[in-house]
């Protein structure tokens, strides 16, 4: 089975965000990681490969330097990676670039995270599946195989939907699906030798029809700190304040 995994490089979750100006985030000294949801996708791909054999190929769109981050994906056990180098990484551009390159592949499954923790978009899987004209099961917490069907548990609002699709299909995963492994020393060493193909994207024409600016959230003014050594007293102050704030 050939499995493609979409991996996005994101800022480490501990990063303090600094703006250069209202249009640009300062990325000096940033530590990068694989988008946490994509780690679940890689893990699931490896488990499917372990069961059925085949190949796991990472696909990513991003900066040239993200090779370093992608190596971490290879160290987990993916076979190879393809990096489409692009400055623009908005959902529309990324989906288009991925579609252009993935149509040239033969594959059974594309796995991805359901959302990227940086842009908070949750758009690429849906857009890509439309472009490739294959079914997408979104926000998936379990994958099973039965005959030629893929059976997914999709997270609804207070429900679990059982969805059946046939390959080639796309599945965007949610936390809870598995516990990602740690890279072994052997795999880390091997990863150094694994292949990362660079694909230089044609400079996409900038059709900026929307205008995006950034703003740091206002720093919250210090809250009221109540000494809790006398619980009754503390609780009464709290309730009084909550009433004044009209939340009770």
């Amino acid at each position: 089975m050939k499995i493609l995994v979409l991996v996005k490089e994101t800022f480490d979750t501990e990063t303090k965000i600094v703006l250069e100006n209202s249009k640009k985030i300062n990325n000096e000294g940033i530590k990068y990681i694989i988008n946490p949801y994509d780690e679940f996708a890689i893990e699931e791909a490896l488990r499917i490969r372990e069961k059925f054999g085949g190949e796991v190929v990472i696909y990513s769109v991003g900066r040239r330097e993200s090779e370093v981050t992608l190596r971490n994906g290879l160290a987990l056990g993916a076979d190879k990676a393809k990096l489409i180098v692009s400055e623009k990484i908005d959902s529309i551009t990324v989906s288009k670039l991925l579609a252009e390159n993935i149509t040239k592949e033969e594959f059974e499954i594309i796995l991805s995270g359901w959302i990227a923790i940086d842009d908070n978009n949750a758009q690429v899987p849906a857009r890509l599946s439309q472009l490739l004209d294959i079914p997408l099961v979104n926000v998936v917490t379990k994958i099973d195989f039965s005959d030629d069907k893929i059976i997914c548990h999709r997270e609804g609002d207070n429900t679990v939907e059982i969805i059946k699709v046939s390959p080639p299909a796309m599945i965007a995963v949610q936390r809870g699906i598995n516990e990602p492994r740690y890279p072994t020393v052997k795999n880390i060493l091997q990863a150094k030798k694994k292949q990362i193909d660079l694909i230089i994207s044609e400079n996409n024409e900038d059709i900026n029809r929307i205008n995006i600016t950034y703003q740091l959230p206002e720093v919250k003014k210090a809250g009221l700190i109540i000494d809790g050594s006398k619980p009754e007293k503390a609780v009464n102050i709290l309730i009084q304040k909550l009433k004044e704030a009209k939340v009770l």
Partner: protein
Amino acid sequence: MDKILVIVEHKNGLLKKVSQQILGFISDFCRQSEKKILVLIYGEKIAERLFEEVASWGADEIITIENQCFANYNPAIFIPTIADVIKKNSPQLVFFGNTAVGRDLSPRLAQYFNSYMISDVIDIKIEKDKFCFTRPVYGGKLFEEVETNGELVFVTVRPNSFGNSVNYHKNPHIYNIEPKAITNFSYMVSDILRKESEEKSLSEAEIIVSGGKGLKSAENFVLLEELARVLGAAVGASRSAVDAGWRPYSSQVGQTGKTVKPKLYIACGISGAMQHLAGMSTSQVIVAINKDPEAPIFKVADYGIIGDLFEIVPVLTEELKKIFKD
């Protein structure tokens, strides 16, 4: 005339709260503008009182798809019919709640129309034909402001983002449409399991009581469940509490869990790691109960009690019981 399409969800014959919040907000705005509000309601059966509820938000048109095929969410069935509604009406904006359905359907339709989508919006400013949407990115550490210029845009709105609005009754034009026949059976919904206890949905809850490692065991969460019952709240958890197996993953709040925006968020025994704040920092009022005065949660808390949660929470529950009895 410009149009705004709101695709609403309902449950037990009532609009979902987020749908109602979107309608209220749009209704307030449209009263001063020339724009028309179109509302799309689908389902196997659409309760009569839903029409009244939607009309009370100043809808100009209510389009229904009352059909068995629309009982359960299936994008392969929904997209052709809803895309048709959009083509026929050419709205400027299409609104969804940022719910399981909205999050899935909206980007698919956006791609279908080769349009932009603005996810998880928490604020909107409107000026004539200019719309400015605010949405949190980088786990709420940054706000993105997106300005559009009147072309078709798809928007999902985070529950509890808009305050109360005033009803504005209109007599909408109501009509039903038939679903388009589909030929694409590649996506099959074979079953829907409802979670046993009708646990209150975290993302829509107005009040959330959340517990972390400080709770020390699964059993101790009873304390929070009692407090939640008195407040009509949902119970959330930190990742550490989830990883310890004390709470289901579906109750995790944070960067790799749910993003919530309740009126009141009470964090008990939660240190306030960045990844937790990412999921709840846009809550209206934050209360923290923690015995460590240095805990970072106090930096975002509006009210913080430094103390032992095992002493504070039961007292809080008892005192609130008294209040709600009156």
